[in-house]
């Protein structure tokens, strides 16, 4: 009993540590004073002005669209690559996995600058497309690293069995392999989506005029102080996702969900 209480307290402490800054931001979003360091009373006005601030909303739109597109494309490319790698010799697989690690481990600023150099040489116009390409690039590794382990757990004979029973390759894949690796694909997608959402450095170097994501918008605001609308927006995003998570997790159809994940 004492042991479980101690364990609960420990978990709670880590959660407090992880969520303390989040709580701070939420509190700041209700601060009537424009300055971070002064409490000017409780207000909802930043939430009202947020929806009138076209620039922030546009940055939000760009951020979500880029995150969604880059995560989706990365998921497709990454999953296909995993299927291919499954049939490769150990050596070539190791090499590909090595390459995959590069964008994850390289200093972000180096990845950002090198992509900028590449886009200049290729003569691309900087804007939405260049950001998207860059995000897909650093998202693919997250997909591969989460799909690959599932792939390895697969029993190859089920696939062969499906073929023997007359299924085509495509059918066999979608009926047999796909359901098994789906959890890996899903968590890869979520990870990629989150990474894209949170990236600043690489976006900064690959963006062009007139396009902003939330990160780059916040960075330019740092000079003159963060607009409180940003705190309001973060709070809305956070609360939305949290509610969705709780809803889904405590929904009555829990068993089915669990089955899909396992």
């Amino acid at each position, binding site marked *: 009993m004492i042991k479980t209480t101690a364990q609960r307290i*420990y*978990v709670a402490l880590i959660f407090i540590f*992880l969520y303390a*800054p*989040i709580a*701070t*931001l939420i509190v*700041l979003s209700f601060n009537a004073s424009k300055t971070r360091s002064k409490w000017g009373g409780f207000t909802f006005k930043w939430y009202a002005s947020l929806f009138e601030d076209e620039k922030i909303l546009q940055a939000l739109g760009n951020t979500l669209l880029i995150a969604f597109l880059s995560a989706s494309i990365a998921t497709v*490319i*990454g999953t296909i*690559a995993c*299927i*291919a790698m499954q049939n490769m010799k150990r050596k070539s697989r190791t090499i*590909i996995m*090595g390459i995959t*690690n590069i*964008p994850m*481990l*390289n*200093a*972000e*600023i*180096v990845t950002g*600058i*090198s*992509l900028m*150099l*590449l886009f200049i040489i290729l003569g691309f116009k900087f804007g939405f497309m260049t950001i998207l*390409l*860059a995000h*897909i*690039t650093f998202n693919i590794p*997250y997909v591969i690293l*989460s799909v*690959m*382990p599932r792939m*390895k757990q697969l029993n190859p004979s089920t696939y062969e069995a499906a073929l023997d029973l007359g299924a085509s390759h495509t059918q066999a894949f979608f009926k047999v392999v796909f359901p098994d690796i789906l*959890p*890996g694909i899903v*968590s890869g997608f979520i*990870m990629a989506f*989150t*990474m894209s*959402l*949170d990236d*600043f450095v690489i976006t900064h170097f690959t963006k062009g005029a007139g396009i902003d994501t939330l*990160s780059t918008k*916040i*960075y330019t605001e*740092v000079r003159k102080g*963060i607009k409180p609308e*940003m705190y309001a927006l*973060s709070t809305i995003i*956070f609360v939305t*996702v949290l509610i969705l*998570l709780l809803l889904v*997790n405590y929904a009555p159809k*829990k068993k089915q969900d*669990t089955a899909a*994940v396992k």
Partner: protein
Amino acid sequence: MNNKRKLLSIPYLLWAIVFIIIPLFMVVYYGITDKTGAFTFANIAAIATAEHGKALWLSVLLSFMSTVVCLLLAYPLAMILSKMNIASNSFLVLIFILPMWMNFLLRTLAWLSLLEKTGVINNILKFFGLPTMNIINTPGAIILGMVYNFLPFMIMPIYNALVKIDPNVINAARDLGAGPFKTFTKVIFPLSIPGVISGITMVFVPALTTFVISTILGGNKILLIGNVIELEFTTTGNWHLGSGLSMVLMVFIVISMILTAIFDKDGEGSML
């Protein structure tokens, strides 16, 4: 059939060549040339100057300490969580990456509000008549920022390695007379090593190259190698030196990749 399947790797390989390998070679090219385009090792050798050497040493030291703290915090947590029988482990993943949906810069700035001399934590301490702490703008604050930002990357792989351990193995150890301590050192820990290694890599390497955390929480008083590289790319405009120094950092990346390859042959300790 196998050959046909291998063809599926072509899109990714093409992508990797254009967007990973070629840019990497461009960094190398910049790193081994000077402004006139002549070949030189000076940009790489520049790591040996007093300031750069010290910055690298400090970075290694601070990232090492954060990695150790992360490991010490994450391992017990992962053990507790792995025994909790949480219905959906994806829910757990999401709970840990949820803070990332709040922008990274905002989260780090929020720590500033918490840690400042007149910040939230000190006000609470004062309210209870406790002595205030002065951690902001010290290496301690940077370590805290690193631990905060990278802790999830340590928790997830260890957790994933631990939940994969077959309970029968542990039961077998118990049946054979191993106490809890021995079961841990002889069975659980060795089986979780792939996760530990992957966690160490995922924390140590980004901590080594960060510059935002040290700028915001270190008050620019502590120069890390990431700050030097950022300075060369954005302020000084000496991309050759910046690239040369980045190449030095790549050595650490290669080391961590080799470590991962040795200890984590089957991708057991994956992130997710």
